[in-house]
């Protein structure tokens, strides 16, 4: 049979079943008619002939079924029937369907969502042709263990000497203001980038051209390639934008190309200008640092590239030992996420959340088993009629597949919905205006397949184990039990352990979940308490990033110092003008929005210069003289920073209470702080040079935003002048970055919005100044709060699933006990047992399991609850949850108890 006929036959059988069956019926009917005629010719009467023809055939339906069994894919019929039966069972056992379905849906959503999120974070893939072959290059510092950026000198050397890599280039990124020739303004994420980036990414422009090598030559015409969204919003989607002139950071640039939607290489950029490198930049000692990229050459591997770069690195260390002694070149996948411990932790979290599904399925299996044993009679009869154990198990697996399959599909839809929100929140909290261009909120095909595979495994777990238990034992024995009405599968040790475990988990998780949600519920984004006598009104504060564009970046150290000094004066002038606005109560500058991202490896605290040092892992925020007052900081000890502390020679700092709590009861005021050498961790602020010492002059409660946002972290508030803003400060390391500072404005009560006037004031001071991320503190911290709420709700959902399954499991056990021991209950009742005694008899096993579970859960939860919650919140939550659990279980057991009490002895005996 050729392939065409083979496919045609199977197509007919699958999709034209009615025609195929009709033909089979016609064929069999013809046979019967012909045989009947033959027998009539042999002398039978017509009726006799008809009857004999049927007997000779062996039964019409049997023959048809035998034909069906020879068809290819006939096993699909069996599965289709099982699935239909499964749907019917779902409708019949609606409570199991509801509880199991909800539990599996939520567990799938959490497991799949977390898995996708972590995968996109830790091991993202670039949506570019052979994106896995695009790499980034930097150095590893052998002393600190962290990474160190490469320089444009390295770029030149590696281009010349490394054959495993092609399209090598460099980039630096910044936000700049863009003004179109028709007056539209906006902020764009600019990449100053090598033209080779476009050959590397292999994405053709939508309109015009991308950057070419000629654009990189010093003195070439200033050109810019814009992203799709910029073209749509700032150029009005002009069908002919090529050749238009825009002002980028105050300097004109000609638009030469528009890139397609979602193109954002290297991160989330929407404007690209050529990276022009002076010959002077190519000296090893003075070459500016940059982010380097490349693509593995055809036939090259990551290992071969590393090997080749290693050789080049050793040569550089020999030629320039002062510069390269500690550095060795490193090449990694471009979009690689966090590595090392962080990646391990994230993967661990992902595994735990996936395991949640396994735990939930195991619990649902308990409920399914309880339902299966009530069908023991049906299963015994089917076995007696010829069904094999395999066939019955397959049917039960099919029923489980219907439940799990439906719940998995719902779970995927829920995951998709939540993932989108979670991703947006995540990047807002990271203060990224846009996610990286490779970030995709959709569930990847591999994740969907993974979820479906998990569903099949879950169906096997839920279907096979109960099936094996229910079909165990000889058929005869089961049939005898069926007629005798007693015995049968029991809820043995394994099920008892599972129910106890479920209850323990509920007791352990719920108090924490409830406390977390209550605490977050009490926290308000707009007005939240800082202390017993002060609150922070987040709507009273406007915050923004204040930066300065440089149309021509300063090159020499002198130019850079002058540029930054002039920038500092402009920032001060903005502060001064804002302070005179009638709506403004006070203005402050700081190195960032909060101490959240400003981590230093450890500030060594030495008290009285003679006591043993204590290492405190703290965060640092550089603040001006108005910041602490503006934020309503409450002094706990010592003093605030005074104007005298804001001089280059001063070394005074203030710390918060969380910092002091790390000192084991010592007095912080008067102590000496020594800053460590900078390690590999990234910091958004230039910390004071290694070895710098500072005196702690005061201790404050976490002020304002700090009280809400990052939590009780140790923070050092240092004068903005202590670590002066240098060309390497505040932002990406690499090419000189325009200076940026965080502006805070506290409004007077009942003052109107400031946004419009804020822009006017800033523009009036200097047109190269730029505002971005303007909003009230509530706007800023809202996403953080939402993120925490989302996390708390997920936690609560998990705890609720566990509680639901515990209660359902206990109820199932009770129902099972009552149905299995109806005769025994009837006998006891007939012998004079009172209602209370019957209730005790029925409830005995359940109450033992309940008590064991609550005890175990309390033992697990108490250490965490005592330590993690304030005051008596822990024990109170535990007590509330235990009562809730007891109450829920009692409520769930009411129906089976009522059935037990309603058993009439005479009726029960007669039924036996």
């Amino acid at each position, binding site marked *: 049979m050729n392939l065409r006929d083979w496919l045609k036959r199977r197509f007919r059988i699958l999709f034209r079943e009615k025609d195929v069956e009709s033909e089979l019926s016609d*064929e069999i009917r013809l046979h019967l008619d012909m045989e009947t005629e033959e027998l009539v010719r042999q002398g039978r009467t017509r009726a006799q002939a008809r009857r004999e023809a049927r007997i000779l055939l062996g039964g019409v339906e049997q023959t048809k079924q035998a034909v069906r*069994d020879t068809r290819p894919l006939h096993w699909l019929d069996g599965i289709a029937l099982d699935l239909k039966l499964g749907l019917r069972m779902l409708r019949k056992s609606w409570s199991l369907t509801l509880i199991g379905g909800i539990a599996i849906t939520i567990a799938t959503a959490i497991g799949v969502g977390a898995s996708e999120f972590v995968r996109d974070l830790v091991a993202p893939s670039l949506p570019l042709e052979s994106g896995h072959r695009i790499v980034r290059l930097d150095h590893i510092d052998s002393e600190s263990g962290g990474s160190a950026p490469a320089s444009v000198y390295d770029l030149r050397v590696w281009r010349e000497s490394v054959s495993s890599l092609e399209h090598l280039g460099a980039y630096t990124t910044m936000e700049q203001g863009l003004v179109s020739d028709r007056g539209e303004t906006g902020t764009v994420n600019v990449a100053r980038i090598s033209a080779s980036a476009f050959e590397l990414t292999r994405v053709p422009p939508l309109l015009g051209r991308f950057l070419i090598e000629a654009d990189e030559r010093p003195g070439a015409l200033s050109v810019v390639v814009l992203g799709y969204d910029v073209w749509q919003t700032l150029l009005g989607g002009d069908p002919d934008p090529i050749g238009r002139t825009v002002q980028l950071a105050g300097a004109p640039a000609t638009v030469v190309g528009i890139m397609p939607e979602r193109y954002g290489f290297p991160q989330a950029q929407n404007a690209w200008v050529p990276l022009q490198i002076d010959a002077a930049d190519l000296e090893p000692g003075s070459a500016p640092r940059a982010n380097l990229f490349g693509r593995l050459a055809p036939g090259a591997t990551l290992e071969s590239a590393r090997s080749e770069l290693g050789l080049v690195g050793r040569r550089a260390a020999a030629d320039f030992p002062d510069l390269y002694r500690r550095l060795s070149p490193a090449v990694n996948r471009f979009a690689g996420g966090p590595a090392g411990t962080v990646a391990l932790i994230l993967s661990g979290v992902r595994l735990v959340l996936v395991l949640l599904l396994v735990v939930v399925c195991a619990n649902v299996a308990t409920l399914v088993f309880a339902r299966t044993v009530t069908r023991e009679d049906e299963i015994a009869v089917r076995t007696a009629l010829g069904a094999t154990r395999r066939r019955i198990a397959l049917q039960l697996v099919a029923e489980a597949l219907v439940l799990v399959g439906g719940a998995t599909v719902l779970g995927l839809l829920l995951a998709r919905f939540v993932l989108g929100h979670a991703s947006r929140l995540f990047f807002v909290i990271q203060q990224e205006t846009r996610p990286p261009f490779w970030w995709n909120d959709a569930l990847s095909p591999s994740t969907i397949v993974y979820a479906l595979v998990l569903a099949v495994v879950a169906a096997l777990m839920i279907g096979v184990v109960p099936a094996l238990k229910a079909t165990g034992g000889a058929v005869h024995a089961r049939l005898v039990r069926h007629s005798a009405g007693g015995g049968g599968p029991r809820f043995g040790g394994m099920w008892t352990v599972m129910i106890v475990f479920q209850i323990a988990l509920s007791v352990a998780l719920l108090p924490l979940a409830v406390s977390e949600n209550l605490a977050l519920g009490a926290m308000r984004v707009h007005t939240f308490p800082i202390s017993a006598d002060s609150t922070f009104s987040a709507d009273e504060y406007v915050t923004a990033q204040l930066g300065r564009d440089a149309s021509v970046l300063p090159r020499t150290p002198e130019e850079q110092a002058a540029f930054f000094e002039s920038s500092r004066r402009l920032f001060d002038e903005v502060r001064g003008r804002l302070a005179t606005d009638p709506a403004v109560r006070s203005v402050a500058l700081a190195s960032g929005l909060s101490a959240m991202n400003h981590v230093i490896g450890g500030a060594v605290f030495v008290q009285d210069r003679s006591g043993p040092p204590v290492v405190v892992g703290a965060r640092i925020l550089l603040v001006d003289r108005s910041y602490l007052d503006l934020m309503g900081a409450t002094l706990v000890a010592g003093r605030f920073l005074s104007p005298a502390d804001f001089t280059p020679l001063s070394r005074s700092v203030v710390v918060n209470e969380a910092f002091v709590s790390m000192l084991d009861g010592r007095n912080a005021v008067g102590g000496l702080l020594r800053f460590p050498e900078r390690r590999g961790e990234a910091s958004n602020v230039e910390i004071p040079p290694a070895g710098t010492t500072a005196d702690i002059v005061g201790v404050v409660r976490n002020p304002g935003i700090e009280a809400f946002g990052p939590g009780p972290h140790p923070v050092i508030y240092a004068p903005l002048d202590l670590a002066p803003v240098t060309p390497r400060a505040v932002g990406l390391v690499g090419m000189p970055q325009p200076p940026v500072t965080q502006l805070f404005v506290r409004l007077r009560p009942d003052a109107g919005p400031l946004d419009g006037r804020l822009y006017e004031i800033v523009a009036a001071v200097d047109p190269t100044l730029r505002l971005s991320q303007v909003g009230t503190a509530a706007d800023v911290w809202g996403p953080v709060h939402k993120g925490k709420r989302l996390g708390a709700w997920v936690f609560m959902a998990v705890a609720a699933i566990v509680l639901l399954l515990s209660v359902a499991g206990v109820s199932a056990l009770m129902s099972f006990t009552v149905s299995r021991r109806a005769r025994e209950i009837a006998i006891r009742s007939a012998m004079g047992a009172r209602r209370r005694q019957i209730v005790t008899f029925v409830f005995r096993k359940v109450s033992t399991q309940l008590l064991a579970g609550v005890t175990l859960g309390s033992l697990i939860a108490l250490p965490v609850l005592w330590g993690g919650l304030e005051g008596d919140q822990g024990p109170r939550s535990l007590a509330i949850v235990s009562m809730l659990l007891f109450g829920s279980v009692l409520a769930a057991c009411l129906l089976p108890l009522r059935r037990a009490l309603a058993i009439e002895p005479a009726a029960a005996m007669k039924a036996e």
Partner: protein
Amino acid sequence: MMKTRSDLLQGTLDLLILKALTLGPLHGWGVSKRIRQMSREVLEVNQGSLYPALHRLEDRGMITAEWKTSDEGRRAKFYRLTKEGRSQFADEKERWELFSTAVRNTLRATS
């Protein structure tokens, strides 16, 4: 019907169907009748096994089917041998002849 005859028929039903069709296309009942005729009324095909065998052979590509009008004026499904079926029949026939010769020789052996 002797039990032994139906045992033989189970193992050779496909072969007999292919033989019956070498003489021309037939519908299912016709195949059963022809086998009976060719065996001089010795072999009676189990009619319940006939149609599953016909459909199995069709699925394997040994025979192909077509709905036509029979001599009696009824619409019937006619089976005929394919090229693969002819080749398969030749192979099966050779194997059966070898087998039956071996059995006959064994039964006739005196030592």
